């Protein structure tokens, strides 16, 4: 007998459409993409069956190569082949040059926006990341057979605001819709916390030790009934397996009696040999190294596991100091940690495992491949954020890794939001003028823990003008910091004593300006103007569909919160928007969306308050 589909009046009978969403682990050395398929999170492979994409981009005359093909060119064409660009993203030129002195690239551009000079012109690190994101999202769309609704991109927990902002810019350049920037250790915690084979690890305190190619993160989380609460995070955004290689390279140079500067080809060869030695020494006690110095001059030597461990011991000790600080910030004793999770390829190094195990006095969990665990966790989050699991009650509560503050008199930093504060967060601080008749004020935004401006990361500097002239100390300037769920900062300032408001929004000085992104996008399109127009139309249509869907589902459940007049106004605005979004004018669609938003503003607020009440009443019933 055929079954009739039963639906409550007003409820949609269409089953929830499955939206395609993926998690991308944008790593220093390797990148991956994963998705949830029939309840399981899995990495997606390319046409050759590889899931790992080396984070290498090579700029050739007429083409851009990404991944293995680019990696092959790293030794023969180092100037045009960008390796580990994640270490350079969101950083200043001075920063880069003081930290990495043997990079084979030629830099150009200004201090805050360094670019590489390549065969296909000036390329900045954001563009390099965009190429990797594009390659992975193309791979996913091909494998899943459709357009992606959105992606979750992971970033090191210890990334500062400029590095996060740049990662988001890269996604924009790659035309990828970012659902969320997710911290790598949090993603790993999700993968372990929701893994069916690890039921016993799903409550309590876990420490995630994440040593990747170029970054180190330690996060301390409390897991409780689907809530992943990050208590503290710490690390070093310039410490990773690459540094093991650098230490090895220096060792080989010394052994082979070489002297810097060396040619880029030899530098790359050295790195290559170092990398191989590091991998070999995870299972062997000794490894042979050979170098081709000139066409007829070769060198060979050996390194023992013991020598290697001596070289990296100080680096491993540095990671453990970060662990100590994170535990202290979390107010957790070492013995209270229930599980230690190992993430990142560099945790394969036996010394790293041994030292971590000794420090936490616990055998670390490594059952999920440390190279894939971040992408797997990100995919789970992406699936939920895309709306595929409306009944799932997983919740991630993350924190900001570094304090945010402002410059005050004497080159000191006044903290506005301290590190390890749960996001989203907003804080305001009041300042005043110190001179009579002062009409402008410089607002310098900084990130870091140190007291002096020079020791912190400068994020942005802007001027608040138009302060009415008053005696010193009479003006009240309110500076507001807002950090959203991606961990991105927005600063605004306002003079409020006279009711005159002048406020400004800043974008960190290291990020790309909106116009730059647009022009780079245009440059990458064949019919720039038309394509841009098409893209804007598409964006507005997607937003219109989203608005209509969410308002309709809100009406289905909560129309009792509205008067019949409000109800009909909203319905009318919906039909108008539906009609206009069929057209081809993005501006008109935007206006229609705004109109609908205007009618639903209080409705949305009422609904959210009602849901808080429901959440609370569920709690109070539980308590009884």
């Amino acid at each position: 007998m055929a079954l009739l589909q039963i639906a409550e009046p007003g409820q949609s009978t269409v089953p929830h459409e499955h939206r395609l969403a993926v998690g991308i682990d944008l790593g220093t050395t390797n990148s991956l993409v994963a998705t949830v398929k029939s309840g399981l999170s899995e990495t997606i492979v390319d046409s050759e069956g590889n899931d790992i994409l080396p984070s290498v981009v090579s700029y050739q005359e007429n083409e851009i190569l990404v991944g293995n093909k680019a990696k092959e060119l790293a030794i023969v064409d180092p100037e045009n082949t960008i390796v580990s660009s994640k270490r350079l993203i969101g950083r200043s030129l001075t920063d880069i040059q003081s930290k990495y002195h043997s990079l084979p690239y030629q830099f150009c551009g200004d201090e805050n926006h360094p670019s590489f000079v390549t065969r296909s012109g000036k390329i900045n690190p954001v563009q390099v990341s965009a190429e990797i994101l594009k390659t992975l999202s193309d791979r996913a769309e091909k494998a899943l057979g459709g357009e992606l609704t959105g992606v979750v991109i992971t970033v090191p927990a210890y990334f500062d605001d400029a590095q996060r902002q740049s990662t988001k810019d890269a996604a924009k350049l790659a035309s990828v819709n970012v659902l969320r920037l997710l911290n790598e250790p949090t993603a790993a915690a999700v993968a372990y916390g929701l893994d069916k084979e690890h039921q016993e690890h799903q409550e309590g305190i876990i420490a995630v030790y994440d040593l990747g190619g170029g970054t180190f993160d330690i996060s301390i989380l409390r897991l409780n009934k689907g809530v992943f609460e990050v208590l503290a995070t710490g690390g070093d955004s310039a410490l990773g397996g690459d540094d093991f290689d650098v230490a090895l390279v220096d060792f080989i140079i010394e052994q082979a009696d070489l002297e810097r500067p060396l040619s880029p080809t030899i530098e790359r060869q050295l790195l290559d040999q170092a990398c191989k030695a590091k991998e070999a020494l995870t299972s062997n006690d000794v490894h042979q190294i050979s170098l081709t110095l000139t066409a007829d001059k070769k060198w060979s030597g050996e390194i023992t596991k013991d020598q290697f461990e001596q070289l990296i011991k100080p680096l491993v000790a540095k990671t453990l100091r970060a662990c100590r600080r994170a535990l202290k910030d979390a107010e957790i004793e070492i013995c209270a940690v229930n599980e230690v999770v190992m993430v990142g390829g560099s945790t394969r190094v036996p010394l790293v495992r041994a030292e971590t195990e000794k420090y936490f006095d616990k055998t670390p969990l490594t059952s999920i491949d440390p190279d894939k665990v971040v992408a797997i966790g990100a995919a789970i989050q992406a699936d939920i954020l895309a709306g595929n699991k409306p009944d799932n009650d997983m919740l991630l509560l993350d924190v900001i890794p570094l304090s945010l503050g402002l410059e005050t008199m004497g080159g000191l930093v006044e903290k506005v939001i301290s590190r390890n504060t749960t996001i989203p967060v907003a804080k305001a601080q009041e300042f005043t003028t110190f001179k009579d008749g002062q009409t402008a004020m410089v607002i310098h935004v900084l990130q870091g823990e140190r007291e002096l401006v020079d020791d912190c990361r400068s994020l942005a500097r802007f001027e608040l003008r138009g302060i009415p002239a008053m005696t010193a100390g009479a003006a009240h300037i309110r500076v507001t910091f807002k950090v959203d769920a991606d961990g991105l900062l927005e600063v605004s300032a306002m003079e409020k004593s006279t009711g005159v408001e002048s406020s400004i929004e800043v974008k960190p000085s290291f990020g790309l300006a909106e116009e730059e992104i647009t022009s780079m996008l245009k440059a990458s399109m064949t019919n720039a103007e038309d394509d841009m127009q098409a893209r804007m139309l598409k964006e507005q249509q997607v937003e219109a569909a989203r608005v209509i869907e969410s308002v309709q589902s809100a009406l289905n459940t909560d129309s009792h919160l509205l008067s019949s007049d409000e109800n009909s106004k909203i319905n009318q605005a919906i039909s108008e928007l539906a009609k206009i979004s069929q057209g081809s004018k993005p501006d008109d669609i935007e206006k229609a969306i705004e109109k609908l938003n205007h009618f639903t503003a209080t409705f949305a607020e009422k609904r959210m308050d009602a849901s808080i009440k429901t959440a609370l009443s569920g709690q109070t019933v539980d308590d009884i």
Partner: protein
Amino acid sequence: MNYFEMFGLEETFSVDLKQLAERFQAIQKSVHPDRFAHASSQEQLLAVKKSTAVNDAYQTLKNPIKRAEYILSLRGVEIPSEQVTFSDNMFLMRQMELREMLAEIKFADDVDAAVFEVNQVLEIEFEQLFKAMQVSLHENSDNSNKSACESLRKLKFYQKLHLELDRLEDLLFDD
């Protein structure tokens, strides 16, 4: 809606932290921006706003010092700014002594032990003041609120010393 009302809690200084945490999480599950990642921009903005307010309320009630300050502000008692001078000379003298103890740490033969010792002294004195503040807050009269405010100001000095001790520890062990 004040922070206590937000979590459906009684307006007292003694808060059941476990209950607070549970309610906080329950509310965040319904307002966190992650719940609205696929919703309209309007709802996303609203979620960020609500979630921010809930985080702020939680941080305030979770931390006893911030909670005390908040309760006092609800009772109309404003904490004087740091610039306003203290009249309690005994207290100020003691603060100077404690600062000297901090400064001496790095010259100690056994730095670990010195840190531990100063930490204990700070904790004991903090506890005493904290208990006094608790009693005054509970009494809730004009006079007791004033003395709670006084204790709170003093506690903040101890908090600062603690921060400095932490920083010192970081410096001593990071080299």
